């Protein structure tokens, strides 16, 4: 139950990250009409981007879980604190509050100009998958980081990281190959112009975090 809740929360947090300057820039960069220039290159770049994102997510959350294990986490106090943090994050997500602390950094734009697009995409994927090297668009990222440390379970941390990486990659690999089409353009525009979509996603994050908190409380 706890694992499922955490994986869903991580996936949702990753998807929410697509509404960031870097996430949206990836749509432009990997699109066949963008720097990739061809559908084949675009698909290859999407694949390397996904691999990079999975790697980045695994490194961050797996690493945090390792830190937690080294600190001897996993006790009831730590788990309780993680549950409280999850509830607080859920409340902030549900209200759509501005993210704080925010990391005001972006991936290097120059990579897509000086590197082959699939290579640049892999690097971008790693940086976005790491979660804390660029803009964070959901409190769930912070809450999940705390939970990974509190539980101190490297295998679970790795799974959270992979789910987060998958979430970061999913919108990009689903939308980028079609970004040049009318429908793809309309979807990208809707992402930018309809705040309700992002707010809805953040509420999904909130629900997932509440479920995590309940699961942590009963674990």
């Amino acid at each position, binding site marked *: 139950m706890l694992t499922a809740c955490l994986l869903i929360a991580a996936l949702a947090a990753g998807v929410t990250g697509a509404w960031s300057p870097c996430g949206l820039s990836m749509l432009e960069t990997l699109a066949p009409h*963008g720097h990739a220039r061809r559908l084949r290159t675009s698909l290859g770049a999407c694949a390397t981007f996904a691999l990079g994102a999975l790697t980045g997510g695994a490194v961050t959350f797996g690493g945090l879980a390792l830190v937690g294990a080294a600190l001897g986490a996993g006790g009831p106090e730590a788990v309780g604190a993680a549950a409280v943090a999850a509830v607080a994050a859920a409340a902030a997500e549900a209200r759509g509050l501005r993210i704080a602390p925010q990391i005001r950094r972006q991936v*290097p734009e120059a990579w897509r100009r000086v590197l082959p697009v699939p290579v640049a995409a892999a690097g971008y994927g790693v940086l976005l998958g790491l979660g804390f090297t660029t803009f964070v*668009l959901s409190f769930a990222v912070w809450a999940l980081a705390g939970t990974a440390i509190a539980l101190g379970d490297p295998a679970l941390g790795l799974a959270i990281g992979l789910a987060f990486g998958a979430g970061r990659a999913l919108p990009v690999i689903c939308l980028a190959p079609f970004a040049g089409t009318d429908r793809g353009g309309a979807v990208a525009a809707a992402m*930018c*112009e309809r705040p309700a979509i992002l707010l809805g996603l953040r509420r999904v994050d909130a629900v997932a975090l509440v479920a995590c908190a309940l699961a942590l409380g009963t674990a």
Partner: protein
Amino acid sequence: MALTIAWLLTGAVLLAAAGLKAADRTGTIVALAAYGLPGWLAAPAFAALVAAEAALSAGLAAGIAGAAYAAALVLAGFLAAQVVALAQGNAGAPCGCFGAGGRLTRAAAARTGLLASVCAVLPLLGEGPRVPLVLSAAVAGAVVVLAAGRRNAPRGALEIDGEGPPLNVPSPLAAWFGDARGATEHGTAAGLGDVWLALFTSPGCALCRRVAPAAQALDGVAVRRFDEVADSHAWAAARVPGAPFAVALGRDGVALAKGTVNDARQLASIVDAARARRVPASSRRAFLGRAGGLAASAAGAGMVGAVIRPGDAEAHHFCGHIYTTDGCPHPTGLPRIDRSGLPLRARDGRSVDDLGRLIDALGRPVDEDGRLLCDLDGRPLPAAPRTPVCQLTGARHGIAVTTDGAWYRCCQGRVRKLVDCCSPNRIRINGDRALRGYCYERRKVFCVMYFQSTIPC
């Protein structure tokens, strides 16, 4: 314990060197020229230097004796190169040791020698720290990657002829200073400052919040802020392209310097330039002020020359834009567009036609309240065309244009898409040599536009 700190400190110095080099690629490559490196070799040498220093720092943090000896060898090589360069009379050239900031001096060479000696001695003194190599390598890699992605703001404001009030003529802005004597900020009346500074800001502009306090700290400057909404007449009179923008006036009301500013240093450059330009033309400072940019800086004039020409600048033309390329011609000023590239009024995102009139959903011109504009007989005015901004630019300049690439940035609390209007032209709209920007293939940026999203950041 002391030995562990010595190992870690030495590693940190090398990591700082790698990070600062990575953060200023161009400056470091230029610095390498002082050592006689040919241009074609400078870029790979830069990459190799950064990678080697980062790797050695990771090795030192892991306490590997081989890394310490290797670092000593590398640093001895640097020392030899510095000594040769000094012997060739290159003292004072950029050192390239810690980015491009330092200068090649005997002290710099001594520092390199000292560091090399420390690296050679460390393994003889005892074992180093046992930080896992994977961890130290990850930290070193992260520092270099993050440093490489960092952009430094330019030192000077962006002064473009067509933006803001014309220079060296009396400015209508002086009237606002006259009215506001005693009501200016900075705790002084306009009459008491040797320079009057008009600072143009707008609500919700994060950069403005950063720049405004810096204005109050300027010595001998009477500051007056002009809000985009409350002081729209002043904005119109000064032809301000966007906030934050500053205009420096002499006590006689003559506009002396102007420009888009992003930070305190750029704001100070405007005041310095104004003071330099105010001095009689025969003086050296006035000459330097006119010479502008690099020439003045090289002559040691400090910030006098820091109001730099568009070709030399890298300031933001509008919030989020980091190059000097001018905005595409837009009927209402700032080149804000919708998702189809059609013009929107920057202030509120309302649709406008090619004449800059607000329009309704059917393209009919309307007033601020949405009522149809009518002629004297009460008949609705005819609709005007509404053309994508990039396309209209191409038509006006007689060149082929394409809207190619884009990049998103966080600007004024919202995610903003920066869009390039690209062409095969070798010249940008402001007359400078074209840059590749976000354009593809052989096209280069002609002018820039932006699309404002609703996403908070």
